[in-house]
């Protein structure tokens, strides 16, 4: 048993895991607070599923430590698993069983007391909208959406402190995604939830905090707002007017040196171009843009709107930065002929 931490239910320190010489997870550290919903993001092969498997006690890390509710996953896997509800990637389920049979079996396996099994299964099925006709259906005959619900019901039925879901919304239609989003929101404050997903807007809506992982390393962690500030500093404005990129670029440089044209498209059917402008933060640039651009009526200014960068842009910026760092590091290694890690002195819980 590790020193108990009342505020964090998951503590991961410098976790490393290699497969045949390739580092899938490389010094990953993070903490997850009690009742927090955290999104785990990263491109394919980034190490998300491996980290989740280590947390679920399904595979051993080469080095580092992970603890769930104060229990070390490597030294006390059975005890740690009692605190976890895990829904693996692809959500494998036995094809021959009925939903209710499977969930009752899982409840018993997870140590739910015999007298509570029926009630807990009913509750989980109600929460996941499985309590009507689906309950008696053979799992092999269920649609993808219902199978996902069975996986989520399985993860929550023993009321664990930590729920780990690997791609829970993959393959679902929009109605089902909204239902699962509501379900996960309902768990907020009661259980710590870790979700990995490729659907970034989903993560942004569902999660309190985001951990971005790339090349086996955590490259960013924080609330979407704090990540926005860190990776996409300044403000962005959308401008729609009758000026092409070249003319608009000139106009911007006349308004102020700090403005930068990030992106342009058009013209549309009415002859309007859409531009994205990067502007320094802290000033009321919107008013300035409206004031300056509306002076010339031939420009036909139609719209100036502040644009909040989405998680997608943050994700792209964070992963790009990590790739740049990796490239620099390998160039440095080649140049110095030194195999030592440049970040060896990195703070353990810096993220």
């Amino acid at each position: 048993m590790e020193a108990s931490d009342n505020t964090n239910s998951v503590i991961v320190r410098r976790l490393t895991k290699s497969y045949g010489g390739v580092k899938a997870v490389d010094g990953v550290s993070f903490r997850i607070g009690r009742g927090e919903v955290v999104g785990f993001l990263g491109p394919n092969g980034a190490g998300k599923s491996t980290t989740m498997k280590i947390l679920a006690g399904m595979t051993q890390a080469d080095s580092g430590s992970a603890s769930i509710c104060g229990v070390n996953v490597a030294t006390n896997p059975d005890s740690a698993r009692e605190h976890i509800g895990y829904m693996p990637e692809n959500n494998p389920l036995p094809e021959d069983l009925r939903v209710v049979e499977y969930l009752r079996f899982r409840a018993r396996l997870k140590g739910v007391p015999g007298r509570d099994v029926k009630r807990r299964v009913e509750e989980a099925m109600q929460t996941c909208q499985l309590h009507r006709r689906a309950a008696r259906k053979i799992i092999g005959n269920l649609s993808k959406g219902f199978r996902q619900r069975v996986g989520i019901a399985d993860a929550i039925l023993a009321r664990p402190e930590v729920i780990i879901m690997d791609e829970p919304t993959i393959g679902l239609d929009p109605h089902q995604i909204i239902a699962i989003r509501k379900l996960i929101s309902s768990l907020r404050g009661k259980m710590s939830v870790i979700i990995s997903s490729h659907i970034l807007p989903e993560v942004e809506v569902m999660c309190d905090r985001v951990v971005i992982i790339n090349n086996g390393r955590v490259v960013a962690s924080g609330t979407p707002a704090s990540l926005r500030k860190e990776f996409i500093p300044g403000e962005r404005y959308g401008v729609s007017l009758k000026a092409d990129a070249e003319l608009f670029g000139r106009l911007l440089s006349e308004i102020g040196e700090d403005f930068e044209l990030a992106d342009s498209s058009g013209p549309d059917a009415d002859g309007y171009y859409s531009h994205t402008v990067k502007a320094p933060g802290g000033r009321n640039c919107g008013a300035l843009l409206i004031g300056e651009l509306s002076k010339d009526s031939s420009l036909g200014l139609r719209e100036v709107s502040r644009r909040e960068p989405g998680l997608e842009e943050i994700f792209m910026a964070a992963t790009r930065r990590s790739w740049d760092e990796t490239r620099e590091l390998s160039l440095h290694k080649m140049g110095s002929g030194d195999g030592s890690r440049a970040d060896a002195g990195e703070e353990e819980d810096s993220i």
Partner: protein
Amino acid sequence: MKRFDALFKHQIHLMFISASTYFAAFLFLAFMGIMYVLALMDVSSVGGSQSATEKFLSVFWVPVLFMVPLLTMRSLSEERRMGTLGTLMSTPIRAWQIVAAKFLACYFFYVLLWLLTLVYMFVAQNYLPQGLAGSNNFAPAQVFTGYLFIFVSGLTYIAIGIFASSLTRTTFVAGMLSFAMLFFAIVGSGIISKFVVGDAYMSWLSGPMEYMQTFKHLEDFSNSLLDTRPFFFYISTACLLLGLTSLITESKSS
């Protein structure tokens, strides 16, 4: 223990809803029924020193070769193919408990099917004409020791089937592997001893091969000659195979 109990009951449930279990049961009971009738006819017409029970049990290995693979081939290979082994391992349960539960469930069916063949003897004793039933077809001591051999050796055979099932994701391959290993386990030592007899360099093998001869064990048990060595051999081999299966299961579960 509660978790193991749940796992064991689940395995029994899975076996009851599996088509291969019923297929194995049908083939086994049909084959053994025919064998018993042939044994009765043989004893009643030809006579000889062997009882019908002895003749009947001497062909035990034939149904074992197809019944054990059919009962065990899905146990772990199917879980690996579906990915449900990983889901099982994400609960507070150990690999050895999964293997033990699967083993015991298959062994339960193995014993159950063999016990059902006692009905043949009961029917022969009570309902067949005296001439066909013969005078020596139901010697309780011989039946007891003969079945005891089948149950003890069955520990190893089921363990072989479970072990084969852990080696592959393909059910059919698991079945074929199991068949090949069972064939070697049952008749292999007999074949090898034939080769080593008279060979000066290989004569040291004759002792161990003699120790492992299944048919010798059957003969001893059928003659109510109970020796602790076969017990030790079959139980220790089963434990070794189940231990290996647990290690494989643990390594393949992630």
